[in-house]
């Protein structure tokens, strides 16, 4: 219904999407994006046509799914894009009998109906598709801005994070907002983004005892990752802020605000701005 979140792959330049756009029809993509140096379009790691050192391996995941493992390249940008690309190809040009596909940190799960396709045939088709993707250049990622109200009730662990890092709370906010985060995958719960790119200075273990309730929209960190809780749920990550963005809406297309592969920037906002956006969001969401 809302026209904002579109697949980013075909654009020449990165588009900036305000996360808040999903709460308000009036917000449109910024027409002249200025991508920071850190997120310039990625070049392939090897020339087109050249085979990388170790191709992805395909192993069974039970009798109705297979797992494509990208072992060699780890979490680098190129392998990241390949994971997105194979899922995108399976969605836009489906293989008969394949019913779902999803990317995780270093692998892709491909789910199939064994009564409609043999697993050997599926594996061979997947290998061909992976080979096709090798030669494609990585397109620039989409950039999404997420307004975040840091600290206070909305980020009860901000001070603990600051203490752990040995810096001031304001510095934690500055570092977190200056970082470019990437959606490595959407998983755990509908619309929950696993964001990599947390500055190492902010690395922190999960809380010793998980909170029984973390509010919807809470921005939380653990290890070297940031997550955003789409709905109120128990959670063990350190809560540093909150956004009024609706991360998951089953009646929106696509249903999730962030897609794997997106680049994310946090934009610090004050409490009043959060309240205002929150109120608009409730009015807009209508649910």
């Amino acid at each position, binding site marked *: 219904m809302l026209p904002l979140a579109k697949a980013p792959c075909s654009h020449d330049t990165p588009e900036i999407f305000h996360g808040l756009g999903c709460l308000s029809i009036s917000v449109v993509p910024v027409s002249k994006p200025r991508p920071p140096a850190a997120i310039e379009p990625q070049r392939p790691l090897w020339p087109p046509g050249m085979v990388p050192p170790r191709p992805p391996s395909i192993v069974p995941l039970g009798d109705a799914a297979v797992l494509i493992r990208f072992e060699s390249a780890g979490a680098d940008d190129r392998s990241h894009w390949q994971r997105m690309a194979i899922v995108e190809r399976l969605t836009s040009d489906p293989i008969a009998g394949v019913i779902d*596909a999803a*990317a995780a940190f270093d692998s892709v799960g491909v789910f199939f109906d064994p009564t409609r396709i043999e697993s050997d045939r599926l594996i061979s088709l997947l290998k061909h598709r992976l080979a096709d993707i090798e030669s494609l250049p990585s397109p620039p990622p989409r950039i999404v801005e997420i307004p975040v109200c840091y600290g206070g009730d909305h980020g009860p662990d901000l001070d603990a994070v600051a203490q752990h890092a040995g810096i001031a709370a304001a510095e934690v906010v500055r570092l977190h907002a200056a970082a470019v985060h990437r959606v490595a995958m959407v998983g755990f719960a509908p619309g929950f983004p696993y964001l990599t790119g947390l500055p190492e200075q902010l690395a922190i273990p999960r809380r010793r005892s998980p909170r029984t309730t973390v509010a919807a929209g809470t921005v939380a960190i653990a290890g070297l990752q940031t997550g955003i809780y789409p709905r109120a749920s128990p959670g063990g990550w350190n809560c540093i802020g909150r956004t009024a963005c609706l991360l998951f809406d089953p009646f929106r297309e696509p249903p999730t605000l962030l897609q794997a592969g997106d680049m994310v920037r946090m934009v610090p906002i004050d409490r009043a701005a959060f309240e205002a956006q929150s109120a608009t969001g409730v009015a807009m969401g209508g649910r």
Partner: protein
Amino acid sequence: MTLHVVTPGALTTVQDLGRQGFRRHGIGPGGAMDSLSLRIANLLVGNSHDAAGLEFTFLGPTLRFPHGCWVAVAGAAFELTVTDGDGQRTSVPVGHLLWIPANATLTCGAATAGCRGYLAVAGGIAVPMVLGGRGTDIRSGFGGWHGRPLRAGDAIPCGRSTSQTLAEASPMTPPPDRGRVKVDPRSASRKLLPRPTGLIRLIPGPEYDWLSASSLQRLVRQAFTVTPDSDRMGCRIAGPTLAGIEERMAGMVSQPVSSGTVQVPPSGQPIILLADHPTTGGYPRIGHVASIDLPALGQARPGDTLQFQITAIPEAHALLFERESALERFRHGLLRGGLR
């Protein structure tokens, strides 16, 4: 047409065969825990096998039907009673096509074996399709009936939401005496239903060989017991501790999982992911339950014992094809039989 919820039972939700194509958004399949029983109930009332029905757990609902209709209940052994408008009570069997007269109530009672029952209504439960499915995602609160379990007083729309395969051969017309309960002799053969054997065929998973040699032996030589904290998300089982994974877990990142994935957390007590599983998991996946045995797990009660048996994928597929052929024969049998 509607059906009215008089009492909702312990946990009654609208379910179909699940959503596919949304895992990349973090949305898992959901759907009926014992998909085989839902499919059988649907076929009995002439629905397409994937129509939405009601799934109820341990204690079934009491439902009132303002209009007469054909229904079928399949799955666990529930004690079914129909009370007609005059207050006359009739016991009716699970696994048969039933005519419920107008203004009668169907009481589903308690399950004496297995734990989940499936009610199919001719024409299906007519809730809107959300993200490719009519099933209820309780934790995220969408799909089904307002994204939640049924409550007393709910009036659930039904009928005309699915193609009716039986209707092609002979329309699902009311029986001659539409004012009385009718138990149609046609039923699902016992052979078709998931057997509560406790034998669970397991296909080794990507982290299978992380287990120590002695744990690998314990996995198949000793039995596991279903624990009470099992739910639609997963079946938790207790048994011999499976060791060997701790040292390798440190570098593990979240990975795709599926229905039937057997995860082993550091406690060493496995969790078998089921219909409402998250799309990814961070624990080692030592194996996957063969698709053929997933419906039986959907009927597992706390205290039931499970015995794993390592199975190769071709064998698991052969069993699945055999069952699908049997279902297809069952469907054809119903078509030939017409309505009596």
